């Protein structure tokens, strides 16, 4: 018993100590992510850079998903300009074959989600800064506003249902009351409750919303320094976006005066808290478009030179002086480190051995045969694509094509006519995906500004004035012998000439779909001598929008936002057919 007593005191002391334990519970900070608290402590640059970084967010489960650059391919693939040689390893067949385009398919979810998540990144910046009080916030402000304006401009063009000529679709759209509606607007002040009842706004509302952002961007950007990296837009990009916007609005009002009337009748609506358009005619829009395009050009950009264009190491994968705005994939982004064949380079450059645009997999891209037929030899851009008469020809390879590719003749000879060699792996690295996939891609080039200016001047001052600008641009920068003449008849013919130059100049850059839609151009993939795969030969008449060029709003939006009305499923089955000879 004594033994026990000896231990009682220390035991009791230990006991008391055990229960007096100060709370052991520890605060834990994640190391895989940063918390809101950590971000709040840091400077706002991290939120600004996030907007640009988000462009390269992808989901490795979906072969087509390489971030926003994949949407560029989706857009070009929905026009007639970028056929694929073989669809076996082509991950964009949905829009080419017009199948599985309904709202339940993953791609529709992906596109919608990415745009709105990008917008949220911009909204976070706008919430965190106060540029009126702190002028140093101008750079993040311009970045956020420009990215957001561009996102809404693309959303508006891609989701607004326009007449297709397919009775079932058009009557459904009429019945649902979605004509003229674009997308819901979410800003830095939208609450969760708002977002659950957030309707698709009419076109004039979204144009004014975009205009408001760009006007602010112009105001803040005027005095701000241009960031070093072209992934952050400066004032030049804001001008460029103004030019695109006014050209879009002007063309719409010109083709559809009833839309101008509608816009004017709502110009003073109290419930539209955005800047007024301030125009009463389409011509005024084109004046603004031309003015802004010129302002952008005057920011010091110069068109790509022939040497830059054909450089197999840096051609269309590195920033140069013609690029106004760029998407940059760095070597530590998953698109380079993790994904191999799921990448821009894999899909677009026939040179990457780790890609699918090789002769082995056959998913390489070509230019439309008829479009190629419009390019004369004096246009130095022509050997970007293999001329049919030059295919497999060693002499032609040596004299015309070798400078524009790192392929040897024996590798090159198996590619079909019209194959494009516009895009190259980063550093020309054909074998190491982690290096080759880290490319930069243009989001806006100054050449587009020249072409906007030409069209806008032509539309506002008469086609002769426009032709002069167009011919000057093409002859100065693109033809070897200054032989280019804009010969299209009348204003329409002139506009076709501009459009044609745009199709050649911006081939593969994801921009030309907007012009097809804006100008309501025919899409023709089936014709005698076509180089489009047989299951992709869908044709569409002019003055309409082809159904597959409008996206459907995913279920995950419709389910949770009760004010959103969906678009019809534009898949072809049962509604329209392939062209056949």
């Amino acid at each position: 018993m004594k033994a026990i007593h000896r231990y009682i005191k220390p035991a009791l002391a230990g006991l008391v100590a055990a229960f007096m334990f100060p709370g052991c519970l520890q605060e834990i900070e994640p190391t895989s992510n940063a918390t809101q608290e950590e971000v709040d402590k840091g400077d706002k640059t991290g939120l600004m850079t996030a907007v640009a970084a988000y462009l390269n967010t992808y989901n490795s489960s979906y072969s087509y998903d390489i971030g926003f650059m994949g949407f560029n391919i989706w857009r070009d693939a929905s026009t007639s300009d970028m056929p694929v040689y073989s669809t076996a390893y082509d991950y964009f067949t949905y829009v080419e074959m017009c199948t599985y385009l309904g709202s339940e398919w993953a791609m529709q979810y992906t596109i919608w989600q990415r745009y709105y998540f990008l917008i949220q990144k911009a909204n976070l910046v706008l919430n965190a800064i106060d540029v009126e009080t702190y002028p140093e916030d101008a750079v993040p402000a311009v970045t956020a506003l420009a990215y957001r304006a561009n996102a809404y401009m693309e959303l508006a063009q891609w989701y607004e249902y326009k007449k297709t000529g397919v009775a079932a679709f058009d009557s459904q759209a009429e019945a649902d009351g979605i004509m003229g509606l674009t997308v819901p607007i979410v800003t830095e002040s939208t609450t969760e409750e708002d977002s659950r009842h957030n309707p698709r706004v009419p076109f004039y509302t979204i144009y004014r919303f975009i205009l408001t952002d760009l006007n602010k961007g112009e105001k803040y950007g005027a005095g701000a320094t241009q960031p070093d990296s072209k992934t952050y837009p400066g004032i030049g990009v804001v001008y460029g976006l103004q030019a695109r916007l006014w050209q879009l609005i002007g063309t719409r009002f010109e083709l559809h005066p009833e839309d101008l009337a509608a816009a004017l009748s709502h110009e003073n609506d109290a419930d539209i808290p955005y800047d007024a358009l301030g125009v009463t005619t389409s011509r005024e829009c084109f004046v603004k478009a031309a003015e802004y395009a010129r302002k952008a050009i005057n920011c010091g950009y110069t068109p790509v030179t022939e040497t830059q264009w054909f450089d197999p190491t840096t051609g269309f994968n590195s920033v140069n002086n013609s690029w106004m705005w760029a998407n940059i994939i760095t070597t530590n982004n998953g698109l380079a480190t993790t994904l191999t064949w799921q990448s821009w380079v894999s899909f677009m450059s026939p040179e990457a051995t780790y890609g699918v645009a090789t002769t082995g997999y056959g998913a390489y891209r070509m230019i439309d045969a008829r479009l190629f037929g419009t390019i004369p030899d004096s246009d130095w851009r022509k050997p970007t694509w293999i001329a049919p008469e030059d295919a497999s020809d060693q002499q032609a390879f040596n004299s015309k094509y070798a400078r524009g590719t790192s392929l040897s003749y024996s590798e090159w000879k198996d590619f079909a006519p019209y194959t494009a060699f516009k895009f190259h792996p980063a550093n020309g690295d054909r074998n190491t995906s982690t290096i080759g996939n880290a490319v930069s891609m243009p989001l806006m080039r100054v050449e587009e500004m020249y072409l906007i200016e030409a069209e806008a001047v032509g539309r506002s001052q008469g086609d002769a004035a426009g032709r002069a600008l167009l011919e000057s641009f093409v002859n100065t920068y693109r033809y070897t012998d200054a032989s280019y003449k804009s010969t299209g008849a009348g204003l329409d013919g002139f506009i076709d000439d501009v459009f044609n130059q745009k199709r050649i100049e911006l081939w593969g850059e994801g921009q030309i779909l907007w012009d097809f839609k804006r100008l309501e151009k025919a899409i023709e993939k089936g014709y005698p001598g076509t180089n489009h795969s047989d299951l992709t030969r869908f044709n569409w008449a002019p003055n309409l929008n082809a159904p597959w060029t409008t996206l459907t709003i995913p279920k995950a939006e419709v389910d949770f936002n009760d004010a959103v009305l969906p678009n019809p499923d534009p898949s072809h089955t049962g509604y329209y057919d392939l062209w056949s000879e």
Partner: protein
Amino acid sequence: MRMKLLMALLILLTANASAQLKSVSGTVYSAGEDEPLIGATVKVKGSKLATSTDIDGRFKLQGLQPSDKYLEVTYVGYRPATVEIKPDLKIYLDIETEMLDEMIVVAFGKQKRESFTGSASVVDADQIARAQVTNPIDALNGTVTGLNMVESNSFGTDATITIRGIGSLNAGTDPLIVLDGMPYNGYWNDLNPADIASMTVLKDAASNALYGARGANGVILITSKSAKRGKTSVNFTAKWGANHDGRIKYDVIDNPGQYYEAYYLAQKNYFLNSKKQTDAQAHLNANAALGMPYTSGGLGYMVYSVPEGQQLIGTNGKLNPNATLGNRISNNGEIYTLYPDNWLKAGLRDGFRQEYNLTVSSGSDKYTMYGSLGYLKDNGIAYNNDIERYTARLKSDAQIYPFLKVGGSASFNHTTTNLESGVFDVLTTIAPIFPLYIRDQYGNIMTDSNGKVYDYGDGNILGLVRAQDASANNIQADLLDLNRNTSNSFNIQGYATLDFLDGFHFTVNGSAYITENRMEFGYNPYYGFLEGRGYVETSHYRTHDFNTQQLLNYSKTFGAHSVDALLGHEYTMNGQTYLFASRNNVVLWESNKELSGAISDADMDGYTTAYNVEGWFLRAQYDYDSKYFASASFRRDGSSRFHPKHRWGNFWSAGAAWIMSKEEWFPTTSFVNMLKIKASYGEQGNDNIGNFLYTNTYSISSSNGEPAFVFNSKGNESITWETVGSFNAGVEFELFNSRLSGGVEFYVRNTRDMLMYFSTPLSLGYTGYYDNVGDMRNTGVEVSLNADVVSSEAFTWNVGLNLSWERNRVTYLPEDKKIATCDGYNGYLSGYLFYGEGLPVNTWRLPKYAGVNDEGVAMFYKTGSDGELTTTTSIDGADYYLCGSALPDVFGGFNTSFKIYGVDLSAQFNYSIGGRKYDTVYASFMTPPYETMTGMPIHKDAFNAWTPENTSSNIPRWQYGEYTSTNMSDRFLTDASYLGLRNITLGYTFPESVTRRLHMSNLRVFCQAENIYYWTKRKGFDPRMGSLYGNYNSSSGYSFPMRTISGGLSVEF
């Protein structure tokens, strides 16, 4: 005279020997076994004089007083004995079997079963041994009421368990596992079933409220084996067996000729109906389509040759009798033969399984030691899909002083798992026409340096491209690729218990559990997409769990009153670290699959995360005359998963029980031997969600070299504990001389403030966040019965049955979360599931299949604006309806065992009734080929589809391109009821006369069959695949069920 006197004294002394002995000695034996008991306490009655027996069971007590007449002998597990003091005693103690059975492992201790007011089920070592399982927890399947389990078919994944219904929407529903008193966070496969003495499943709040934080979904207490005092034994068990694909097969077309017929039929209908061609045109075009590339709607491969000018399929839709299997084609100047192969057969095997366990257990009065070594190698049923495991365990206790006991255990485990599983995907992707191998012009399989040459369907050798798995060959990938997890786990537990004052015990527990996993993953550089390059990645994942408890216990009996009180503190920290790197361009694949063996850097990542929880608790138990019992508990817990402002939660319970049969008025002659009624209520918490959900998180990215904080997930500062309030009431009984025993329990579990992932519109910039939303109720009745039908010396027959009936309803959703309406219910939706008040959780929300129209096209219901039900052939135009849920109504198991003259035979079944699961696999087999999606296996039901001649069929016409007929709808919701014959064991225990001659104490031989058969609504449909309460029986990524038949022997010395 002196001599006389001395003699007289001696006689006197002898006559009064019993009263006058100064010392006594003797030996204590275990009755029946004649084995000496080491460490038995021998005490002089009414005196403080006491000693314990030595290693030979002997004792000696000196200094006896004349008044000392009796000795009291006690030994744990034996009935105490009182014997008269005599010289050289031989004392036999009876084993107290009843008492051992009546103890039950409960939260933070053991308790007499009769005083237990809660609800618990116990599974003992025998039951574990009967199930041929890799981890002990799988042995609970079908044996415990209220516990529903879907075992994993994969070595790399644990089973899914819910106890008493699905308790939460988005927070975890896994029960807490407690190993020897300490929360166990490790891999289940790290536990060797041979080391487990018993498992107790605590189901109601009164039982597990003391686990407050994590007890809401039930608690599984696992007790590992310990040595018995005074007994040494060595046991060796060996099992050898073979695994076989245990899948019941769907009626899939497995004959290439029939497959072409089915494909032809789909194409012909397409040309007839969609292209409006004549029968003759459609016949020609359908035949032509068969061999076309898949991009043009064909199969790409033609494995039959037909005489020039003839068609493969005749106008009767049947294979041309002149067609012969094997077709010669030429590509790049070479001639090859196309011949179909059975891919599944090539990729599956009958794997060998072997398991050895050696245990040694020994104990003296002060020390006990249990040690075990185990080895398991199970080759599964697919190549490079196997497990090899070494386990070692040591457990020891020491009574240092009469008032201080210390002990602990240490275990080590080394497991290598290979997880290649490509072959399982082949089931739904490869039609029976595709060659697995490349054959030369003579039909011989060609070879290269890796053996047979496989067809990758990428056009490279044959010039033909498969629509499915092009550039891949899953069968060869299983052979060549790498997917391995090598893990080491260490577990150390220790405790010290101090007894002081009268009835006080103070215990300190501590445990550390560390796992190290090295995961290696790689693609070979020889074939497929990565030909010429290859890929390797290595990742390391470490978990570090630390747990400590301080428990102060007081127990005391005052006459008929017994009280027991517990005051405790517990702290748990779970930490994880992760490191990952990958490289491309592997140089020496065969011999070097490490990062150093590859030359191009790819990706890398690393981070740590942790979770910790702390609690203080109190428990009081009271027992009057072993008739009336009451218990109450309180616990306060804080969790790092919540914001500091919302971190702490209070949980409590109260319970009572009454053993009615002990009352004097209870008719003793009745057939009722024992009757106990009990009731309890308690509230517990659930924080089983991810870490850091209370704050927004941003991924740390790079934007052209600049740091970027990219918004990643939306946090919600106000999230806090989900609370489950459980009421339990039950009856336990023993009838007919205890030949029939069992219990009936009724429970209601109300989950409040459910942690739920709440979706937002995508346009808001994120998909949703966690919130405490809504209430849910689970109601259930559980019945368990055990009958000793025949119980004689030579023959016993035992039957057991358990049944759990469950009903789940969402009882409340706040108005602002009711954002959708379906069939008159307002609620919330997620994918194809709907959550509404009054509905079971995970209720299906799907288009309803309305059969076929007069052209055989699939129709779906829609409701017009006037409320009238109409049909549409467009799935997009279909309305969504509520279509029931996957939750079963009743589930459970039954078992029976016979014993006759040393031969024992037992069988166990489990079953589930009710619920509807989506038969994804059948839906895939019933999807007609469509653009770019050809060459997938087809179910024989395609031939039963609607035709103008077969208009009574409910299956839509079998037509190329009409894939929307198999879009998600209730057409493929299938009754998920099943009956499974889980195992049969046949054994023979040699009689003692034999074993004694062999110097053994026990020898048993046995054979076992596991996962023998199952019966379901549709042949092939296995509702047990996928997740438990999950709604799909997905095939991809899952392994097939495995049937294992093995034999073995167990020897004990």
